[in-house]
């Protein structure tokens, strides 16, 4: 009878493996998504050999650290990195969605996104727990040279929040769960610990763009 138990265990294990493999089979391909370009939220040339896409939550401290690291990498390797920013506001961070909405509105005023993006990260501790964070965002926007009237109208447009959440939904389909998550030439890197090493490795390989 022992063989019957082995056969049953093998069948159960095969069932488990089958369910997992089937789910993985229908998971979206990250390289496909990497092909999309968001001009307003990109830095560098899309001809660069290394493409980095960052999924950020503005209220997450490691995301601020990751943004600094990426800025440094882009300065050290001019023309070598093409960077895209995408939103992934986590529900645990009460001001993260608001920050992403303002950032999206900043991106809709040509050329203003990155200045606002940096200001928001630089002052993260100041607004993270502030119930009136939008007042601070407006101040950062003013410093970044944004049109405040347009920004105010945009930030109250429910379509903007929908667009941010749709971007997050797409990221979830790719398996993004934690922030920051980066894709370096299509390879997923979660957290900042391995980011510098992955960028260095991609620069060494000078792989063809995804």
């Amino acid at each position: 009878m022992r063989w019957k138990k082995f056969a049953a265990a093998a069948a159960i294990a095969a069932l488990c493996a089958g369910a997992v493999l089937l789910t993985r089979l229908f998971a979206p391909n990250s390289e496909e998504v990497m092909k999309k370009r968001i001009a307003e939220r990109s830095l560098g040339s899309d001809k660069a050999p290394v493409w980095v896409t960052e999924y950020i939550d503005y209220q997450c401290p490691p995301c601020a650290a990751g943004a600094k690291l990426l800025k440094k990498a882009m300065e050290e390797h001019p023309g070598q990195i093409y960077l895209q920013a995408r939103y992934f506001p986590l529900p645990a961070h009460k001001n993260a969605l608001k920050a992403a909405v303002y950032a999206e509105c900043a991106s809709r005023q040509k050329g203003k996104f990155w200045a606002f993006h940096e200001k928001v990260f630089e002052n993260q501790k100041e607004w993270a727990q502030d119930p009136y964070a939008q007042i601070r965002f407006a101040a950062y926007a003013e410093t970044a040279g944004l049109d405040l009237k347009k920004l105010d109208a945009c930030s109250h447009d429910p379509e903007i929040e929908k667009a941010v959440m749709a971007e997050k939904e797409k990221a979830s389909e790719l398996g993004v769960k934690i922030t920051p998550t980066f894709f370096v030439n299509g390879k997923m890197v979660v957290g900042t610990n391995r980011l510098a090493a992955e960028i260095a490795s991609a620069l060494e390989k000078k792989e063809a763009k995804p």
Partner: protein
Amino acid sequence: LTSARYALLALRAALGAVFIVSGYQKLTSPVQNFEAVIGKFEMLPGPAVSFVAHTLPWAELVGGALFVFGLWTGPALFVLWAMNSAFIAALGAALLRKLPIEECGCFGEALTLSPKQMLGIDAALWALFLLFFTASRRLRPPSLDDTLGP
């Protein structure tokens, strides 16, 4: 007596299902997510993090499934209970060391739980494993082990 046996069967199925969901969620999400979660606990060196991230979800899934069906119930119970105890130790140590972990990552994308909440759930599971272990020695719930023989 019969209803008590079926209650134990339900308990075994529920305990196994927790591990099936936990393992399945991790296995169907990119392994980098779980590696990052394990890394946050600062307990294992790099290569061990990767090894655990690749193997532990399979142990959860297959161990949970064997336990649900009551196949090799004893060894499956031992493996699940050992994992449960290890999770309690890791979460407890993280809380004592005040590590900046906001979300334990225990259930992949299915459920967002703080380490404190997860520690409470793990402690409850530990007690339920103890209850099952004690009660199943007297009342054998229906299982494949009994159907297929020794």
